[in-house]
């Protein structure tokens, strides 16, 4: 049985180098159904965090990227909910004969997340969430009409937020 396990492990290690053996379903990362289903991370030493594979094959980094993406999505939702001048505090002004409604918002559907291992401290990951913040405007004949109208972006700002996470500490 030990010999069989050894042979299987050996074959799996060979798989990336051999097109015949590199069957896609074999290499797919196992996915937990939900964050709550994931087991708690054991405390690993720095050696376990060192990249041993190129980034696109680094399963530890991929897992951390997924965790960070979930955190980043929730964080951006919090930001949109508390932002001054956000949708909850829309501004309406009369300009000439028309009304304009404006508010600021981060586009939650277009977040891009990156995770890296810290160069100086292998116990840390660094996550960046790249996003676009818009000022949106609607124009109407009445204040209510412009509040309910179609909002178009009138300015766009590219931004990023950088977080760090000690291994095992989660993102916050």
């Amino acid at each position, binding site marked *: 049985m030990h010999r069989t396990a050894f042979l299987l492990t050996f074959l799996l290690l060979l798989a*990336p180098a051999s*097109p*015949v053996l*590199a*069957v*896609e*379903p074999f290499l*797919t*990362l196992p*996915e937990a159904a939900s964050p709550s289903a994931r087991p708690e991370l054991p405390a690993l030493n720095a050696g376990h965090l060192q990249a041993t594979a*190129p*980034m*696109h*094959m*680094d*399963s530890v980094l*991929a897992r951390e*990227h*997924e965790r960070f*993406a979930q955190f980043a999505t929730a*964080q951006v939702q*919090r*930001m949109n909910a*508390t*932002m*001054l001048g956000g949708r909850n505090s829309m501004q309406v002004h009369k*300009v000439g004969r*028309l009304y*304009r409604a*404006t508010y600021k918002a981060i586009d939650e*559907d*277009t*977040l*891009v*997340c*990156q995770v890296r291992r*810290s*160069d*100086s*401290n292998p116990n*840390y*990951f*660094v996550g*960046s969430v*790249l996003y676009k913040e818009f000022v949106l*405007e609607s*124009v109407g004949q009445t204040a209510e009409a412009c509040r309910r109208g179609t909002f*178009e972006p*009138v*300015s*766009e*700002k*590219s*931004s*990023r*937020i*950088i*977080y*760090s996470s*000690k291994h095992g500490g989660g993102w916050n």
Partner: protein
Amino acid sequence: MSMRKRLLSVAILSALAVLMLAAQAPAETMKPKVDNFILFVDHSGSMGMTNDALKGVKIKLAKELATKMNAEIPELGYQSGVSTFAPFATQLAPTKYTKPAVAGALSKIDTDYEIYGRNTPMGMGLMDLDAVLAKMSGKTALIMFTDGDSNYGTDPVAEAKALYAKYPDRLCIHVVSYADNARGKMVVDEIRAISRCSVVGDPAALGDNAALKKYVRDVFYDVVDDTPRSMAPVKKECETITLGNMNFGFDKFAITPEMEPALEQALAVLKDSSCKQFVIEGHTDSVGTVPYNQKLSERRAASVVRWLQAKGFDASRLVPKGMGKLAPKFDNKTDEGRALNRRVEIRSN
């Protein structure tokens, strides 16, 4: 007045009203954002599998979406092509864009194929596409339909970066992602992050027709209309960087080892940036007096500047500025808002 004459009068008045409204409606002009585009479809074994969230076989969904997208793209004189990778094949060599030509090329993509042993050499696919890109002049949008699950060959992110380096300011890679595992999602995000021109495409969202129209507009063309808006659309080129969890201790301003990983990343971004000068702004929440928070935020901004300078960043490009509690971005009435307001921002000057 007879009933017939009355009805006729009403009809004429209504038609006049419609014509007047139509005349007042803002005129729209479509202006192409790019000269060329390529639809680039991942044809690998993993794309032949089902995406549980999207409830369908990925290659079939990608083909359908690409076909719907094609129907929305206006014929504004683009050069267009269709290619697949894993394995690489040209379905439509670059030619003047017409909807039928691209639709015909997409229809040729086989969606029932043997997936066993069919790898995803995504990096190699991007390398092979270079031969097509090299024949195109002007700006090109590359729209990739992929699950990002690259398991063979060269690093796809490195290959994407190489393409951007070879075609500076002429190429933008947009990814419509069918990624359903952590590795695929990471690869997709890494490619999207290379350039801020990239428009994020989520197939679930693009199932909505309005969202698909918006996506096509964002990738392919600008609309110039006559609606009297308060300002012309303004796009700022240099991004703002916020250090999200720079947890200075209460009344403290020194940089601690725990802060350094985030600062290193900020330094890397600044070094890559083409912006000339940066202001490092310290912000506080609303707790405490104005003078106290002003002083504290100045010291924290200065600490960050000193750290960046010590790591070799040109001091003349950095300006520290304390904003105290005078420029909140979030509602200070909540714990969450106050936590978000306690931040360091790096913005271009």
